[in-house]
Each structure stands twice: as structure tokens, then as C-alpha cells.
């Protein structure tokens, strides 16, 4: 019998004696489902995941079976206790990131009335990016097998298509474009506690390219002690006791589900809603009414974020659309010295200012928070940082020719962003919805956005795993 096996047996014996910081040889199967469903239908289901996880899981299964929800990914990871596993389903997207400005020497001398000449704008660098889902998990099974503390990291990226940037207009009026990809990404990275065999909603958000649809990230963890696992020299299949001791919580402990909703409503209505939402006795009814109004269409449910967070822990959830924009532009006419004939010709045509480098900015919502739960389950001390960025569109700026010229004006385009930011630390009573922020939106004339937040705490005790 070799040394590591003896160590394992001794370690397990210590666990049986009730000592902590020993990793039992559990086998863990983690399944993550990514589900799309109507946002209206998702709101009550999200709340149900905290109060009745089993019922919520069954409801979700029924929605999938009836075709009222779509399973977009089902990722499975098998690992030993305390070991990291990864599952991913991705598609590689390649796109040019740098484009050489056309070499003036390659552009033939201009002749008035001439047919368009050939142009060349070589791509000098490509990037690759994975779209799809990547799921990493590191589970730590609490002695007894009922609770699992997990380090989880999920990143979901959509590639809905390309965005075209005008690079120039040829003499015959043909427009030339650069194509850049558009990505939507969301996900989170955190510690959380899950109950064996019960689904836990680890994240939820709205789709950036279809605001009527919500996406749910549902994790279910199954554990088993391999029959006769003690006969296995599984030293390689165990995390270090020190790491396990750090991540497995001491029971009892708690976790809170943070629910964040953002509505966009006409400003006149928003002011009325604001008064109701500030009143703790009327806030829940106002929330229900706001939801109902989104069905009629006078207001919009712009975002739903829902994540669990452990006591004394911090987490980040994001739902972004990457907006690319031109960063460096060629000089109009590619720096060619214009002749009289050219100037004459340019009265009838426009020239471009081709971009040859791009930057990106993340549009959407980021919720970053830290929480400390009170012992009586009365609420959560929340330190919160909520940021949102919107893209208004491209502003048009003149790019040439010079003043006084009779040539047609050309333009370059720069993005116009608006953003809001709320940073706060406050006590959030358990299950009490509160108005987090109220912003007038410059991007949407006459409209404002209302952000609401709620925390629901859940307690975990040292329950034995049912046989």
C-alpha cells in the first residue's frame, strides 16, 4: 500500500471523526443549462428559483418540453472533489483588426471623366475570438454531500454579425466598407453555494439583440461517492485540504440572491412611478404594475440581472454589447497632392477617409457588489457599483475638403455614448425591493430609466444528504 493511499485513508478517517479541512473523494457532475425564454415569463421564474428551486426546475423543464423556452447550450463537467473542470462550445470568429491605408503610389493618376480605378486596402492583422459558451467549475463538496461550494466562471458570447464602416466612395458612387464583428458577451465569475441535485440560477440577463428575450444560466450539481472509492489511489483527484478549507464555508452560512431590474419609461410617467417606488409599502405593487405596462408597450423592461452572492463575498455580473468604432483615419484622398483636374473631378465625387484601426467599448450593464449578511436574516449590507453605457449613434464630423473648395463635403464618424453610474453602500432589508437609481436619458428623448434592486437571503445548515 503506497504512501499517498495511506495518507488518503488517514485523511478520510479524520473526516469521519468530524475534523474539518479534509477533502472527501466525491465525484461531481455539474450541468449548466443556458435557456432563452420570454422576458415577461422569466421574471416570476427568477424569484421562484430562490423560494422553490425544485419547482422552478420543473417549471423550466416543462417550458422547454412545450417549446416555450429554448435550450441553447447544455454543458457538462465531471470532476473530482475540489478539482477544476471546463466545458465549452465555441465557434472561432476571425476579423481584420488593422488595415493598411492605401499606398498613394498604387492609385493611378486621376483623369477627369475616367472610369473608377482599382483600389487596394490590405488587411495587415487578424484577430480571433471564440463565440459560444465557456463554463469552468471547481466544486468543493461539504462533508455529507448535501452542499457544494463552487468557484464558477461562465462566459457567453454571441456573434450576431458584422457592422459596416464606410471607408470611401468611388467615382461611380460605389461605397466601400470595412466590416467589423459585433459581439455580445455576458457572464460572471464567483463563489456560490449549491444544494446537490437542485438547480441554482447563477445568472440571468436580457439578450442584447432581442430585448424581449431573457437568458437564464441554470446550474445543477450531482455528487456521488464512488462505491469503494477508498480502494482508489485518488491522490491526483483531490484538491489540497488547505484550499478546500478556504472555500468550503463553515455552516451555518447564508447566500443572497440579488435581483436587479431596469425599466425605461416616458419621463412624465417615470416621475409618478418614482413617488410610488420610494414608498416601501407600495413599491412591490408598483413593480408589478410596471411589469404589466411593459406588456402594453408604454414602458420597456430593459435589463434583468439576477445572481446569488455568498456572505462576505463580492461578485460581478455583466451583459455587454461591444461597440466598435474608427480610431485612426487616413487623410482624405490618401494624402495625394491634388491637381487642378482632380479638384475639378472631385466636384462630382466624394472621397473617403478610410479608417485603418478600430477601438471598442462595452455597451450595457455591469453590476459589481459586495455583501455582508446579518445573523438574523433580516437583510444584507450591500456595497454596490452599478454602471451602464448606451450607444446613441455615430456623430458626423467634416473631414474635408478644405473650406472654400467647391468639392463635396466628406465626413468621418465618431461614436456618441451616454453612461450612468451609481455607487452606494446601504442596508437592503430581506425581500424589500428598493429604488436604486432614476436617470433621465439623453439618448432617448423624453424617456427615463428606473433601476430597482432586491435581495433575498437563503440559509444553509448542516443537513445530512437524504438517502
Amino acid at each position, binding site marked *: 500500500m503506497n504512501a499517498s493511499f495511506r495518507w488518503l485513508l488517514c485523511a478520510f478517517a479524520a473526516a469521519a471523526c468530524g475534523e474539518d479541512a479534509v477533502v472527501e473523494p466525491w465525484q461531481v457532475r455539474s450541468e449548466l443549462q443556458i435557456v432563452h425564454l420570454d422576458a415577461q415569463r422569466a421574471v416570476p421564474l427568477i424569484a421562484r428559483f430562490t423560494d422553490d428551486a425544485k419547482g422552478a426546475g420543473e417549471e423550466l423543464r416543462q417550458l422547454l418540453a412545450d417549446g416555450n423556452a429554448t435550450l441553447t447550450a*447544455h454543458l457538462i463537467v465531471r470532476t473530482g472533489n475540489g478539482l477544476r473542470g471546463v466545458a465549452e462550445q465555441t465557434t472561432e470568429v476571425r476579423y481584420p483588426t488593422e488595415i493598411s491605408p492605401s499606398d498613394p503610389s498604387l492609385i493611378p493618376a486621376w483623369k477627369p471623366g475616367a472610369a473608377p480605378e482599382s483600389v487596394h*486596402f*490590405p488587411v495587415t492583422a487578424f484577430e480571433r475570438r471564440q463565440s459560444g459558451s465557456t463554463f469552468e467549475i471547481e466544486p468543493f463538496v461539504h462533508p455529507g454531500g448535501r452542499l457544494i461550494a463552487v468557484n464558477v466562471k461562465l462566459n457567453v458570447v454571441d456573434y450576431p454579425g458584422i457592422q459596416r464602416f464606410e471607408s470611401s466612395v468611388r467615382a461611380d458612387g460605389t461605397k466601400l466598407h470595412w466590416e467589423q464583428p459585433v459581439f455580445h458577451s455576458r457572464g460572471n465569475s464567483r463563489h456560490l453555494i449549491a444544494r446537490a441535485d437542485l438547480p441554482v440560477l447563477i445568472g440571468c440577463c436580457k439578450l442584447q439583440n432581442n430585448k424581449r428575450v431573457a437568458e437564464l444560466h441554470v446550474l445543477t450539481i450531482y455528487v456521488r461517492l464512488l462505491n469503494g472509492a477508498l480502494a482508489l489511489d485518488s491522490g491526483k483527484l483531490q484538491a489540497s485540504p488547505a484550499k478546500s478549507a478556504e472555500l468550503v464555508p463553515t455552516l451555518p452560512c447564508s447566500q443572497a440572491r440579488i435581483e436587479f431590474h431596469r425599466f425605461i419609461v416616458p419621463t412624465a410617467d417615470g416621475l409618478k412611478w418614482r413617488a410610488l417606488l420610494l414608498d416601501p409599502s407600495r413599491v412591490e405593487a408598483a413593480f408589478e404594475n410596471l411589469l404589466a405596462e411593459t406588456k402594453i408597450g408604454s414602458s420597456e423592461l430593459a435589463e434583468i440581472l439576477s445572481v446569488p452572492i455568498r456572505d462576505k463575498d463580492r461578485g460581478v455580473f455583466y451583459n455587454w454589447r461591444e461597440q466598435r468604432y474608427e480610431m485612426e483615419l487616413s487623410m482624405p484622398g490618401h494624402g495625394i497632392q491634388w491637381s487642378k483636374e482632380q479638384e475639378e473631378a472631385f466636384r462630382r465625387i466624394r472621397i473617403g477617409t478610410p479608417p485603418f484601426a478600430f477601438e471598442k467599448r462595452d455597451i450595457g450593464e455591469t453590476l459589481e457588489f459586495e455583501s455582508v449578511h446579518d445573523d438574523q436574516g433580516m437583510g444584507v449590507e450591500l456595497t454596490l457599483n452599478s454602471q451602464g453605457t448606451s450607444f446613441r449613434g455615430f456623430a458626423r464630423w467634416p473631414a474635408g475638403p478644405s473650406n472654400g473648395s467647391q468639392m463635396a463635403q466628406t465626413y468621418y464618424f465618431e461614436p456618441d455614448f451616454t453612461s450612468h453610474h451609481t455607487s452606494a453602500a446601504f442596508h437592503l432589508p430581506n425581500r424589500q425591493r428598493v429604488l436604486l437609481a432614476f436617470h433621465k436619458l439623453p439618448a432617448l428623448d423624453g424617456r427615463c430609466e428606473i433601476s430597482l434592486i432586491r435581495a433575498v437571503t437563503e440559509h444553509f445548515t448542516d443537513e445530512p444528504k437524504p438517502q
Partner: protein
Amino acid sequence: MFPRLASVALLAMLASAPAQASDEAWKIHVELQAIMLPAKDALALLPELSDDKSMPAAWAKVEAMLADAKAKISAILLGQTQGEKIEVRQGEDVRYATEYTTPWPIQHPADDKAAPKQNLGVAFGPTAFEIGKTGVMLTASAEASADGRRISVTATAEHVWMLGWQDFEQGRLANNDKLIIKQPRFASAKTEGAFALNSGERTLLSIHRVPGSETEMELFILRTWTTPLNGGKK
């Protein structure tokens, strides 16, 4: 209290057991089957495939579907080890250009005075290549328990597909024809983990949509088993 004491006593007995069991040597077989089947059938089978107890019955259904040609095998990868790392792959190497020269006009020979003045065309030759590996790949290392009944596995299973070619515009000719370079588009499904199985047991490693298909899914099913090596003695 008593079960806990009993387990401690059992563990103490095991820990002090003679070392004869470690003299046995085992060859470990690792088999990955990648199986494509209609998404509807795959999702219906998923609860059974996911549960270790119902896996044998679910596997029998998969075999029946294979026999009826309702399911198709993408790959069967088989490896053997006595503890060393196994790498098995079935696939294709796709070579593609990553860098090109500046386009230049293709001209008629200078001494061909009868040739028309216009150019024959434009060329931009590739100057650098990369290779993309497609197909199903299994990387695994495994160790057996002394009695050969349990196997610890560290496995990575991946299927890479080439979805097609993507066009990138590099410029325009005078007649407005586009100068295009083509780049490949790959998709992959991958899972990695370290876990333990009983010898002979099958387990579902992954279920994923087949890229480009709305109606088909693929299963990765891993099976490991041991056979005695040299009569079971090291």
C-alpha cells in the same frame, strides 16, 4: 455515532492492510465515442444518460438507434495506458493562408507586341500559412486502483469542425469586382475534467449541438476498463 466509529475502524483496518494488492498491474483502456443523433432524441435521453444508474439502459437505446441508423458515429477513439498520457485523434489538417503579398497586375510578356494592352488580372500570393486541426481528439491519463476496479481519469475530449470559408474584402478592381481573401471558420465543443469511474462504466462527458445544424446533437461517451497485465503481476 456508531456508523462513524464503524467507518473509522474499517478505515484503520484498510490502512494497516498488507501491501500485496499493490503488486497487481493493470492495463487501462479508454474509449471515447462521439455519436450524432437527432436533438429531440438526445434531449429525451439526457436524464437517463446523465444518471450513472440508468446509463446502461440509456446506452442500450443509443446502440439500438445506431443499429437503426437513427444515430451516427462521428468517431470512436480508443487508447490504452499504464499511467502514461494518451492522445488519440481522428481528423484532417486544414492549411490556410494568413499573409499575402500586395496585389500586382499580371501582364502579358513584354516581347508579345500583339498582346492587348490591358492586364491579364491581379495576383496576391500567400506568403504564410497556418494549420487548423479538425476532427475528434481525446487526451487522457488514467490510473487504476490496486484491485483494478476503479479508474481515475484526467480527460479532455474535443471535436473541431470546419464550418466553411469567410470572405474578407481586400480591394476592388476597376469593374468593381471584389478582391477577396478567404479565411477558415472553425467551431469546437470541448470538455475537460478529472474524475473516477468504476471499471467498465460508461459516462456522458458532453452533449452539444452540432454546429450549423439546428436538429442534430452530439454525445461524448467515455468508457474505461482494466485488464490484467502480464497475468496481473508487475
